[in-house]
Every structure is written in C-alpha cells, then in structure tokens.
C-alpha cells in the first residue's frame, strides 16, 4: 500500500486542533482465565489451555474469576475512578474466528469503574490531567495467524486459530477526548500508556510487557480547524504495541489527516493498522453494519456487586503511585535528573530500589545495574529481568568489595559467573578462585620483585614522585593475576621503596 501524503507536523499543529482518545487493554496476570479454570499462560503449545467454556462449546457455562474482579477494582481505584456498586457483563456480538462463541463477554453500560483521572507529566514539565471515561472487564480473543500470501491478512490462503489466549482477563481503559495537547499529543499518548503500564506493573495485576501484548493501545485521532466546535471525523489505529509506536502512530495520523483536510477532502472513519517497520498506518475496516454489536446483558453471569468493605480493603492494599514513588526515591538517593532518568528509562527502578534496601549505596547499585549487568544483557540480547542475577547478588558483591575481598575487576568476573549460572557469588568466587590476595607476604614478594626489575621507577619514587608507583602497581597486579587490592599494593610499594 502506498504511503499517504503527509503535511509537515508543525504546520499541521499550526492549522488544526488535535483531539486524541486512547483505549488501553491490560491483560491481567491471574492464574486462570476470566470465566474458566484454564491456565492464563503465555507461549504454551497451541490449544492446550482450552476447555468447553473458552472454546465456546454449546451448553458450557462461565463463572467469573473473583481475583480478576479484585484486580479490575484495583486498576479502577489507581485511576481515581468510582467503582460501580452494581455492574454486569454483556455480550458483544460479532463474527470473527478469533472468538468461537460469536460474542465477546464484555461490559457495556455498567462498567466496573468509571469517571477517573490520571495526571500525566511530559518532558516539557507540563502535567496533563487525563480524564478517564471508564475501565471495564472483558475477555481476550484467540490468536490468529495468517498462512500464505505475505503472512498478513490480505492475500492469506487461510488462517489458523489458537484459543489459548481466548478468555484471558482484560481490563479496557478508555479516556475521554483529550483536547489541549497540540504538538505534545504524540508524546502525551505514549507517556499516558507508559504510566498505565507502570501502574499495573507496580500493582502486580499484569505482567505489563508490551512486546507480549500484555498492554496494547488503540489510538483515536481527529483534527478540526481551530475554532470549530464540532469534532472532526476520527480514525482508530489498532493494537499499537510499543511506546515508540504509540508516539509515531499518533504523529503520523496527525500529519496524514492534516494533508487530507488541507486538500479539501474528508477523513474516512475507519480502523487503521500501524506498521512500525515502515512507519505508516494503512486503512483497515471502515465503520459499517458489522459494528452493530447488539449488546445485551449476559444471561449466564450474575451481577457483580462489590461491597464497600471490599473496595476499601483493596484501596488500602494499593501500592504507592509510581510517579510519587519516583519523586521520593530520587530525593532519597540524591541522584541528579540525568542519573535517575538512566535508571527509569532502563526499567531498573525496582532492581535498584531492592539493592539499595539491602544496604548498597544508590550510586553503586545504579553503577552495577545500568552498567555491567545491562552490558551483559545487551551482549546476550536478553532482557535484564531474564538474567539470573538478583539484588541480593549485587549486595553480596558490594559487601565483598568493601571488605577488600574483591576488587573491581574480580567483582565483574564474579558477576558474570553468577549470570552464567555458576551459582551464588560466594560459590563463583571460590570456584573460580577470585578472592583478592590479602596475604601481605605474597604481595610484598611481588612488590620487591617488580621494584628490582624497574630500578629507574624505584629511583623516581625515592625522589618523591609517588605517582610513578602506577607502573609498579601494574606489574604487581599482573604478577598476582589481578587478584590484589590495588590500594594495598600501592601502600606496600611506597613502604618498600622507602625502606
């Protein structure tokens, strides 16, 4: 499909007012699905976490997962929503092979949470107060793969359906239209999704991994000439699955729609698909009869009526809001904005926090996680969370460094042993023989040998040029295969040189 004509972004913002609306789907990390006891697991063999309920076999009856209701209430509360004292499920009827029942069990006019708001800061320092329309419970659909053609829907010979994901609990969070963001609209959209992701991750109600589709965003964008009251026709870009894609897709739609409007044409109300590889959206289905979902109350499920006590109990269990936690930690750790942003952008706040709480200084904890550990993860093409290194390991290494048992180089080697799965820090240190040689006898012998070999350096040191000791330190470290405390070696050199 050919790329559309685009207007320059600044020009588009100059001419039109941008209105965005965001729908974020969050997959909950309950043990089981929303309406049946099948495991809620990622990456299993196809169609092995399925049963008559999630396959939509005739006569199968759903029962609500109580934990999923609690998680949904928690999300609602974290978004400052009111919680419905009387909510129910509804059937959303449509035909598509990813849902075998021909309807999705969702919520319609009685969502579990409604009328909330979320403060979303952006880089300029401005804080947007994003109004939340609702957050409702529903079930995820199965996963389709398209075979033949180019592996996409268009031109496929047939499609294959895996229902493992069908029935996984979802919470869909819908904002009200956001009017005043202008040139910051793309950034705001992505900052909003990032914040939702942080919140659900902090509450541990979702694994919140966008690359796995745990958090997905549909972005609605419309433009209207400045001063016009009536809203412009909107498009909905579906399933944008990274923060960068959210920003890029919103920016692209602004530029694309502006070019169409400026040419005097009309926007088609439709869903669009974002292609991150080539950075453009393509037209999907136009709004049609098929969007007449004929919602009606789900007769097989009884109403959800959380008591005040339950809601208040969930409220007391809510963790600290991620934004205030960040502000608190940065102050406690006395890190600069840049240093702190390093940690946040690498998604290492939890790791550093845990390490600091084990008695390590913030600077050292940051150094290990964003330095050596991130480097190894990068080298192995893995997420840091996939590496078998824990805050306890880092704390142990730091403890051995302060006790003079490891130097920097040995510590890095111990760490790589831990990551390679060779055991605990202590085990790696002992198996690889990494401990610093603290036996002064052995060190003194090595120092004497090095001094004897480099009489010119010895002269300089004796003449008061202590910085010349560096060359001797190098030789000694080499002799000791790096397993010496450089500070102690230096002391010994000066001692021996002057004796």
């Amino acid at each position, binding site marked *: 499909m050919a790329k559309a004509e685009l207007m320059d972004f600044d020009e588009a913002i100059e001419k039109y007012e941008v209105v965005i609306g965001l729908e974020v789907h969050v997959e909950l990390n309950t043990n089981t699905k929303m309406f049946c006891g*099948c495991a809620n697991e990622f990456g299993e063999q196809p169609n092995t976490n399925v049963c008559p309920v999630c396959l939509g076999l005739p006569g199968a009856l759903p029962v609500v997962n109580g934990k999923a209701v609690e998680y949904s209430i928690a999300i609602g509360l974290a978004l400052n929503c009111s919680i419905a004292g009387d909510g*129910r499920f509804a059937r959303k009827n449509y035909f598509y092979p990813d849902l075998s029942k021909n309807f999705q069990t969702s919520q319609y006019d009685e969502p579990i949470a409604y009328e909330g708001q979320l403060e979303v800061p952006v880089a300029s320092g401005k804080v947007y107060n994003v109004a939340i329309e609702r957050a409702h419970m529903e079930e995820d659909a199965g996963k389709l793969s398209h075979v*033949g053609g180019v592996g996409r829907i*268009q031109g496929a*010979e047939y499609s294959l359906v895996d*229902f493992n994901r069908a029935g996984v609990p979802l919470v869909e969070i819908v904002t009200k239209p956001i009017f005043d963001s202008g040139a910051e609209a793309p950034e705001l959209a992505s900052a909003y999704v990032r914040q939702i992701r942080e919140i659900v991750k902090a509450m541990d109600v979702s694994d919140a991994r966008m690359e796995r589709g745990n958090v997905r965003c549909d972005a609605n964008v419309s433009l209207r000439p400045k001063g016009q009251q009536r809203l412009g026709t909107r498009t909905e870009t579906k399933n944008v699955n990274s923060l960068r894609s959210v920003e890029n897709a919103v920016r692209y739609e602004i530029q694309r729609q502006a070019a169409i409007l400026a040419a005097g044409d009309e926007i088609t109300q439709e869903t669009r698909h974002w292609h991150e590889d080539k950075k453009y959206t393509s037209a*999907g289905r136009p709004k049609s009869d098929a969007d007449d979902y004929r919602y009606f*109350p789900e007769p097989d499920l*009884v*109403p959800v009526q959380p008591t005040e006590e339950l809601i208040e109990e969930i409220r007391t269990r809510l963790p600290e809001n991620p934004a205030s936690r960040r502000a608190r930690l940065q102050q406690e750790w006395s890190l600069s904005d840049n240093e702190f942003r390093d940690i946040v952008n690498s998604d290492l706040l939890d790791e550093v926090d845990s390490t600091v709480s084990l008695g390590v200084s913030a600077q050292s904890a940051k150094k290990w996680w964003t330095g050596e550990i991130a480097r190894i993860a990068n080298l192995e093409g893995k997420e840091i969370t996939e590496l078998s290194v824990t805050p306890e390991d880092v704390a142990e290494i730091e403890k051995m460094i302060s006790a003079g048992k490891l130097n920097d180089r040995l510590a890095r080697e111990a760490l790589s042993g831990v990551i390679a799965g060779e055991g605990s820090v202590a085990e790696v240190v002992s198996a690889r023989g990494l401990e610093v040689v603290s036996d002064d006898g052995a060190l003194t012998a090595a120092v004497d040998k090095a001094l004897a070999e480099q009489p010119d350096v010895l002269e300089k040191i004796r003449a008061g040029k202590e910085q010349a000791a560096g060359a001797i330190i190098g030789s000694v470290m080499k002799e000791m295969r790096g397993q010496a405390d450089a500070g102690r070696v230096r002391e010994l050199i000066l001692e021996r040189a002057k004796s």
Partner: protein
Amino acid sequence: MSEITPENVRHLASLARILVTDEEVEKLAKELDVIVESVAMVKGAVSDDTPATSHPIPMSNVYREDVVKPSLSQQQALSNAPDQADGKFKVNAILDEE
C-alpha cells in the same frame, strides 16, 4: 401498527449471518412485531422507580477461586474442528481487513 419493517429483518439476518427468503422476511417481520408490541405493554407498566431486571434471580457475586483446573488436550480440543493444521483450528482466509 407495524414497527418492524422487512428491511429491519434483513439487516438483523445479515448481522446474525442467517440466510432468509422473502417469505421468511415477511413472516418474521410480523412475528417480531408481536414481540415488540408485547415488550411495549410491559414498558407501559413500568414506573420510574422500577429497577431494570436483566437477571430475574436475586443473586450476585458468584465467583470462582483463581485455581487452575485441567484443560482439554490439544487432540480433544480439535476433535470437532472441520479442519486443522499445526495444532490449530484452520479457518477460511479473512478478507475484510487491510
């Protein structure tokens, strides 16, 4: 007074993926009309303080523990599938998107 037109019936039939003949459309329009009128009568009996009753049995908060139960095997799951490949249900190509 007929509220349900043949067009309404055809629209509903197409949404529900049901093939209907012209005679069936006429017949269904009349039948649906009776249903709509009956519902209208009930509506007339309802005052503002009558709560909507989507669920006639006074029951709420029926929940399941979040404990995994055995699922079907892949073979069982696919045993009624008209067609299958790679452990998945095989369906016709979907052409209405992109």
